[in-house]
């Protein structure tokens, strides 16, 4: 194999791994939000949360479908979603944290939705046309998600004593998981150099400015603590992901090849 062919193979493998990661982020969070279905605070919000979950799951399908194409074998999107184990998932940890109470869910959504807004905007500038197409579709959904999570954050932060207390508790709990969102590894660095991947370090400043502005308006505080948990992109997970995957993959693994 010549040097340049080897490079092409490697970069194709890199791209596939990257696309799978993006799919992992989407499906894990989508599944988490779907846990609210039938348990929402009231009917309208229940349906709204279900819609958001479906947006994320649909996004995961697009990423996994692309990854299946790139893999060049018989793989399908289902193989990526249902036949990989915990250590093979490379989602950011913030997405796998439990759904918690409603304040916890809203806080996570605010942080992740705002992150996705900048991430997807940047991804529309990728040199990879398929990623551009996915990002263009997803960024519209995310604009709506941001609107929802912002207005809920204001409502709950600036609401009752109880809602404010719960929001601040959630922020203090989740904040340490936000740092790894802005750190890329060697794989992503290679793709950033090729103009394909998003350089997530660039997103930190605008993201933080948005979060600070919303928290301030809501009467909530950005934590001053510096603890951080990392590892999602390396496949090191919290104890929560295994349970989520068990639930999510159980039917598919019990009845392989089953069709509706």
């Amino acid at each position, binding site marked *: 194999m010549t040097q340049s062919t080897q490079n092409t193979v490697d970069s194709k493998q890199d791209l596939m791994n990257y696309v799978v990661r993006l799919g992992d982020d989407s499906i894990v969070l989508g599944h988490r939000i779907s846990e609210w279905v039938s348990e929402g605070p009231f009917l309208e919000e229940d349906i709204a949360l279900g819609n958001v979950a479906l947006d994320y799951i649909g996004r995961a399908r697009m990423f996994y479908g692309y990854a299946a194409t790139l893999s060049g074998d018989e793989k399908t999107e289902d193989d990526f979603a249902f036949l990989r184990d915990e250590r093979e998932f490379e989602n950011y940890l913030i997405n796998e944290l439990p759904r918690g109470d409603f304040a916890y869910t809203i806080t996570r959504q605010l942080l992740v939705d705002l992150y996705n807004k900048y991430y997807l905007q940047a991804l529309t500038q990728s040199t990879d046309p398929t990623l551009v197409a996915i990002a263009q579709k997803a960024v519209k959904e995310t604009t709506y998600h941001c609107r929802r999570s912002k*207005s809920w954050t204001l409502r709950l932060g600036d609401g009752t004593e109880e809602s404010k207390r719960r929001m601040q508790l959630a922020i203090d709990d989740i904040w340490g998981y936000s740092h790894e969102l802005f750190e890329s590894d060697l794989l992503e660095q290679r793709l950033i150099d090729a103009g394909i991947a998003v350089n997530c370090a660039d997103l930190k400043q605008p993201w933080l400015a948005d979060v600070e502005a919303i928290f301030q308006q809501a009467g909530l505080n950005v934590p001053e603590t510096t603890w951080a948990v990392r590892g999602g992109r390396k496949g090191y997970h919290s104890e929560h992901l295994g349970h989520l995957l068990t639930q999510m993959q159980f039917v598919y693994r019990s009845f392989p090849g089953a069709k509706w």
Partner: protein
Amino acid sequence: MTIEKLELFEVFVRPKRGLDHKHVGSLHAEGREQALEYARDVYTRRTEGISIWVVKSQDISASQEDDNECFFDPSDDKPYRHATYYPLPKEITTM
């Protein structure tokens, strides 16, 4: 949050350009803006519309069942208010 503290809104959706907004149902929300978002989430999930109105249900004045006799019965015997009551002149072939 309890449902009792929420307000009731009526939702109107315009299915496509050129058609009128049509009443599609109601929902609970904390205010107009949230009502609009929930209307989007609850009533346009299958691309039913291109425009949404929400109106507080309490802002709608509705006729009552008791009103029916005096409201609607009087028009029953006034067929001349319908265009079809009038015979068309022979010269007019299309209408």
